[in-house]
C-alpha cells in the first residue's frame, strides 16, 4: 500500500498497453475457465520420474503448432504468408520415417540423424522454392505457396506409398514422445527453436530488416535493403520450422501419415500469429506473442475437452476467435462500433478492448 495512488493508473496503463497483455490475458482467462471443471487443473504430479499435468500436456501437444507458428511469424512480418507448411510437415515426416524404416537397425543413432537430416533438407528446399517464387518471380505469396500446399501432400503420399509408415526407433521417439529431465523432450526442442529464432532476429539485424521490408517495402528498397535475399531466407526458415514440427509429429506417433500429418496446421499457425499480435499486413512481429497465441489455441482445444463441451465444437470456437480477433484488428470495425470513443477521449479509463486492439496489431 506504499505505492502512491497517482502512479497506479499509469502502471496499469503501461501494463495493458504492453503488446503481450491481451494475448496473455486471454490465455490466463482460458486457463482459469478450466478450474471449476477440473479443480486440480494446475496440479503437476510426478509419476515414474516424469511430470504430468494439464499444463505440461498443453505445451506438449502444442509444440508442433508453436514451431510452425514461429516460422510463420517471420514470413507474415515480411508481408507474406506460407500456406505450404502443412504439406512440408507431411513431407518431412514421410521422408524421415521411410528412411528409418528401411534401416536394418532402426535404433542406430547415425541412421536416425541422417534420416532427420534428409527430411529437414527437403523441407528447406520447399522453402527455397516458395521464396524463389515470391521474391524472385514476384508471385503473390498466397498463390506461390498454394502450389506446394496442393502438390506436397501428394509427394508425401508418394514417399510413403500411400501407407502409414510405422517405425520402431527409440532415439527417434525421443523428439516428439520422449522425456528428458522429467519433462517432455519436445518442450526442449521448442524452447531451443524459439531461443534460436529470437537470437537470430534480435541479436542480428534480421528482425529489423524483416520488419522494415514488411512495414514499408518501397522505403526499404530506397534504403538499400536487399529484400529478395531476406524474403527467400525467411521462407526457408519457415519451412525448416515446419520440418522440425514434422519430425515431432511423426516421432510422437511413431508413424508417418502423408494424408493427415499437419493437416490444417497452416491455418492454426496463421491464427496463432494473428492472436499473438503480428499484423497480417506485415511489419512489427512478436515471437513471444506467437508462442502465446499458439498456446491459446492449444488451451482452447484442451478446455473444450475438460469442460465437457462436445469436442466437435472446437472448430466453431476457433471460427469465433478468428472472427473476433480480426474484427478487433479492423480499423473500420473499430470506427463503427467504438466510433465515438476515440483514444484521446478516454485517457483515464484503463484499457477497454477498443483501446487494446491497436496494441494487438502494433506490438512493440
Amino acid at each position: 500500500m506504499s505505492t502512491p495512488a497517482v502512479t497506479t493508473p499509469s502502471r496499469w496503463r503501461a501494463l495493458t498497453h504492453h503488446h503481450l497483455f491481451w494475448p496473455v490475458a486471454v490465455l490466463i482467462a482460458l486457463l482459469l475457465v478450466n478450474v471449476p471443471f477440473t479443480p486440480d487443473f494446475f496440479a503437476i504430479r510426478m509419476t515414474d520420474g516424469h511430470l504430468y499435468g494439464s499444463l505440461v500436456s498443453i505445451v506438449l501437444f502444442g509444440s508442433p503448432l508453436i514451431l510452425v507458428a514461429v516460422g510463420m511469424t517471420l514470413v507474415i512480418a515480411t508481408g507474406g504468408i506460407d500456406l505450404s507448411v502443412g504439406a512440408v510437415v507431411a513431407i518431412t515426416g514421410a521422408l524421415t520415417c521411410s528412411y528409418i524404416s528401411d534401416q536394418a537397425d532402426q535404433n542406430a543413432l547415425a541412421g536416425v540423424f541422417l534420416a532427420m537430416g534428409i527430411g529437414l533438407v527437403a523441407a528447406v528446399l520447399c522453402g527455397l522454392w516458395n521464396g524463389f517464387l515470391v521474391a524472385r518471380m514476384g508471385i503473390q505469396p498466397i498463390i506461390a505457396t498454394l502450389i506446394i500446399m496442393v502438390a506436397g501432400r501428394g509427394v508425401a503420399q508418394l514417399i510413403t506409398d500411400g501407407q502409414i509408415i510405422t517405425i520402431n526407433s527409440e532415439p527417434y521417439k525421443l523428439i516428439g514422445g520422449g522425456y528428458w529431465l522429467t519433462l517432455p523432450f519436445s518442450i526442449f526442442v521448442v524452447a531451443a527453436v524459439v531461443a534460436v529464432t529470437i537470437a537470430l532476429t534480435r541479436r542480428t539485424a534480421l528482425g529489423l530488416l524483416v520488419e522494415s521490408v514488411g512495414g514499408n517495402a518501397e522505403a526499404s528498397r530506397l534504403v538499400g535493403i536487399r529484400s529478395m535475399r531476406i524474403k527467400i531466407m525467411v521462407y526457408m526458415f519457415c519451412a525448416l520450422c515446419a520440418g522440425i514440427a514434422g519430425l515431432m509429429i511423426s516421432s510422437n506417433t511413431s508413424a508417418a501419415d502423408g494424408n493427415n500429418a499437419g493437416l490444417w496446421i497452416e491455418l492454426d499457425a496463421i491464427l496463432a500469429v494473428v492472436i499473438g499480435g503480428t499484423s497480417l499486413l506485415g511489419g512489427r512481429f512478436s515471437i513471444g506473442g506467437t508462442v502465446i497465441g499458439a498456446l491459446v489455441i492449444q488451451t482452447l482445444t484442451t478446455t473444450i475437452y475438460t469442460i465437457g463441451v462436445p469436442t466437435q465444437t472446437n472448430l466453431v470456437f476457433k471460427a469465433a476467435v478468428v472472427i473476433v480477433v480480426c474484427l478487433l484488428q479492423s480499423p473500420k470495425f473499430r470506427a463503427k462500433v467504438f466510433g465515438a470513443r476515440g483514444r484521446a477521449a478516454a485517457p483515464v479509463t484503463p484499457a477497454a478492448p477498443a483501446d487494446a486492439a491497436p496494441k494487438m496489431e502494433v506490438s512493440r
Partner: protein
Amino acid sequence: MSATTKTRTAPEGGPSTPSPASASAAARLLGDRRLPVLVTAGLFLAMYIGGLSRYQNYGFGEPQVFLNLFIDNSYLLVAAVGATFVIMSGGIDLSVGSLIGFTTMFTAWLVERQGLPLLLVIPLALGVGAFGGFLMGYVIHNFEIQPFIVTLAGLFLFRGLCLVISKESISISDSTVSSMAQTRVSLGLGELSIGAIVALVVLGAAFYVLHYTRFGRRVYAIGGNEQSALLMGLPLGGTKIAVYTVSGFCSALAGLLFMLYIQSGDPLHAVGMELDAIAAVVIGGTLLTGGSGYVLGTLFGVLVLGLIKSIIQFEGTLSSWWTKIATGVLLCAFILIQRAMTARKQT
C-alpha cells in the same frame, strides 16, 4: 494502421529482353487473353487422345467414359464455377470445401433424422449456403478484412457445424434421393446424371451472367482494377458481397450434388475441396489476381483434373496421390504462364 493493401514492387532485376522479332510474336501470343483457356483446352485434348491411344483396348474410347467425367465431377464443376466468380473479382474463398461438407450433413440430417421432405430441404440448404456467403462478403467489404482470413473463419465454422450436427456419417436411404441419384438422361451415345445436367446448367447460367449482365461485367471490372471501378461509379460493395453470395450458393449446390453422388452426409466430406476448386479455376486460365479469364476455362480446368483421375484409374498401377502431384505441377505451370502474361502488361 491503415488497411490499405500494399503494392508489391517489381522484382529486382528483370528477365532479359528477347530479340525484337521473336519478342513481338511472343508478346502477341502472350497478350491474347484467351491463351490460357486454349492451352488448357489443348492440354485436355492431348491428354484425351493420349488416353485413347494407350487404353483403347480397355474401353477408354467409349463415349460414356467421356460423359462420366461430367458425372463424376459435377459437384466440383459447380463449386469451381462459384470460385470463378470470387477469383475473377480478385478475392478468394477458402470456405468452399467446408460448406460442401456442411451441406451434405445438413441435408442428410434434415431428411433422415428430421424427416423433412427433400423438396423443402433443397431450397433451405441453398438458402443457408447463400446466406453464409453473403455474411462473409459483408464482413469482407464493410470491415475491410482480407478475404483470405474471413473465408478461413468460414472454413472453420462450417466444418465445425458439420461436427456439431453429428460426428458420424449419416447415410441417406430416402427414396427420392436414391431415385434422383439413379436417374440417367440418355444422350444417344451415352447418358448423364441429374447432377451432371445441373452442373452444365449452372455453367451456362454463369457464362450468361458473366458476359451478358451488368453484374457480370462489374465482377470483371472490379477484378481488373478495384480503385478504378469505384471511381467509375460502380457499386463496389454490392458487387463484392454478391460475388461471395454466389460462391456460397454454388458451394451449397455442389454440396447437394455431392450428397446425391455419394448418398450420405459426412462431416469429413469434401475436406480440402476448396483447393481443387481454386486449382481448377487457375488451370482454366483465370488470373488469381482477378479480372481476366472465362468460366468456360473453368470447365476445362475441371475436365483436366477429372481426366487425370480417370487416366490414373485406367493405368491401374498409378496411385491416387499422383492426382495431387499432377494438379500441383499444372498449377505451377499455369501460375508461371500468368506471371509471364502480367509481367508483359506491366512493361
